[in-house]
């Protein structure tokens, strides 16, 4: 029965998208809280380089993407520490260099035609059962890590020094967050593509803010809103024959606008303490 369902490419696409959105939403809340949107962009733009390296070295692509993303994230943090260049300059340099390097490297791979568009904008309709499995593993590990790191991450987000004085292992938690972002990027690459991954993280989280009274509510709602966007985007893309990744982001954007057009009294506020 389940095997039969998974045979349908739309069903596989939906499942992959839902899984990715369920992790990207809660993680996106942290990206929004910590003002890391551009950081996420930079790391996700380097994912293509991971693909190229993976193909060249004959290694698992998801693993390679995760590794390259973590490496870029660590490089960024090290460069930011030196404080010679402003953060946004550094991010700009790294983001676009990594993306260009990835595109150039991909074209060097002979004998293998890589569909560049699929990596840039996602190719969720081509998700196979194997992909589904790796998304499930990557997403599952990311979600588990996020739950384990939740409290220290939140403490760190509110005030880093205070957290450190109170015994939060700051370096370890920050590394964990980077690993999380890398895992989600690797999982989301096929769904929305490297150019649009950050949108799937921050737009649902930004929409969720209007309803949430606690950090947990915002994270869970972000996941749900992201899943709704995936469903709507997939349907729209099928209906109007548009590229799926961008359509999902457009659906998320429409949701965001709708949420912010709603008058305040219609917004249900969850009781929060």
């Amino acid at each position, binding site marked *: 029965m389940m095997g039969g369902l998974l045979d349908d490419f739309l069903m596989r696409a939906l499942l992959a998208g839902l899984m990715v959105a369920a992790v990207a939403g809660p993680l996106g809340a942290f990206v*929004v*809280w910590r*003002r890391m949107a551009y950081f996420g962009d930079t790391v996700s733009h380097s994912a293509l380089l991971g693909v190229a390296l993976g193909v060249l070295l004959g290694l698992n692509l998801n693993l390679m993407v995760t590794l390259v993303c973590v490496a870029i994230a660590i490089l960024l943090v090290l460069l930011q520490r030196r*404080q010679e260049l402003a953060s946004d300059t550094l991010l700009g340099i790294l983001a676009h260099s990594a993306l260009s390097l990835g595109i150039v490297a991909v074209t060097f791979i002979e004998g293998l035609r890589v569909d560049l568009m699929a990596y840039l904008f996602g190719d969720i309709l081509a998700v196979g059962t194997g992909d589904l499995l790796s998304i499930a593993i990557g997403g599952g590990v990311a979600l588990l890590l996020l739950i384990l790191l939740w*409290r220290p991450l*939140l*403490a760190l*987000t*509110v*005030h880093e*020094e*205070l*957290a*450190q*004085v*109170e*015994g*939060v292992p700051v370096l370890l938690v920050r590394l964990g967050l980077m690993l999380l972002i890398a895992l989600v990027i690797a999982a989301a690459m096929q769904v929305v593509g490297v150019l649009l991954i950050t949108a799937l993280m921050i737009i649902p989280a*930004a929409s969720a*803010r209007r309803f*949430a*009274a*606690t*950090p947990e*509510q*915002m994270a869970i709602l972000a996941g749900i809103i992201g899943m709704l966007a995936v469903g709507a985007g997939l349907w729209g893309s099928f209906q109007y024959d548009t590229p799926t990744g961008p359509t999902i982001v457009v659906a998320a954007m429409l949701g965001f606008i709708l949420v912010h057009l709603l008058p305040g009294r219609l917004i249900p506020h969850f009781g*929060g*303490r």
Partner: protein
Amino acid sequence: MRKTPSLPAEPDSDAVPLLSARDVSLERAGRVILDHVSVQVRPAEVTVVIGPNGAGKTSLLRVLLGLWKPGQGRVQRRRGLRIGYMPQRLQIEPVLPLSVRRFLTLRQRAPEGVLLERLERVGVPHLLHKPVQSLSGGEMQRVLLARALLNRPNLLVLDEPAQGVDIVGQGEVFKLIDDIRHETGCGVLMVSHDLHLVMAGADAVICLNQHVCCTGRPEEVSRHPEYQRLFPETDMQGIGVYRHDHDHVHDVAGEVHEHHAGCAHGHRPGPGGDSR
């Protein structure tokens, strides 16, 4: 219950400082920020670090708290030391939905009764369920103080506790800190550039300008030429107005440690600006 000198000091004895830095130096981005600084924070005393902007006050605090590793020298904390830390300023992104209750329990869970009791002690029990972003500067400082008190600290570390509070509120915050330390008997280490308010309640003052210019009781420090050079507008008069119960101490010759109050080393010209 006097200890004989031959016995090692027991952990609880007042002779053992809560926190001490010995010969600590710190350089950042090629600039000397702390230059062979030695300080002690004793139990049940209010130790205040004063100095002009860019003197390295906050840096010294960070080193003492263990947030930064000194390039040279050692920091020692007494065993069993529980620090309640109140950072200089805390701004929480409006996009993070966070109530005061949640903020208080970020690191350690506590029953609501305890939270309310702490908030009541600092005079703001009505804020428990308010979003943190809705608090005024003075309310935030009080909540921060309540949070610092949660784990029953034996040392309160406060970085500019009256920052962003109006002049009336500043007096209240310092009064509150003074009351709390008398109630709990905890030591207090405080950084401030508000000389009048702070020196009034201090037991020990450390005047810092990269190096330790002078240390001692407030009245000793305020008479020190180095202090008067750094803060020319202040004089004994101004401090005398706010002083309360320490006036008897400075007459006792034995209490005055000349090598503490004086500077043993040569002074470089102070830094030109206060940029940092």
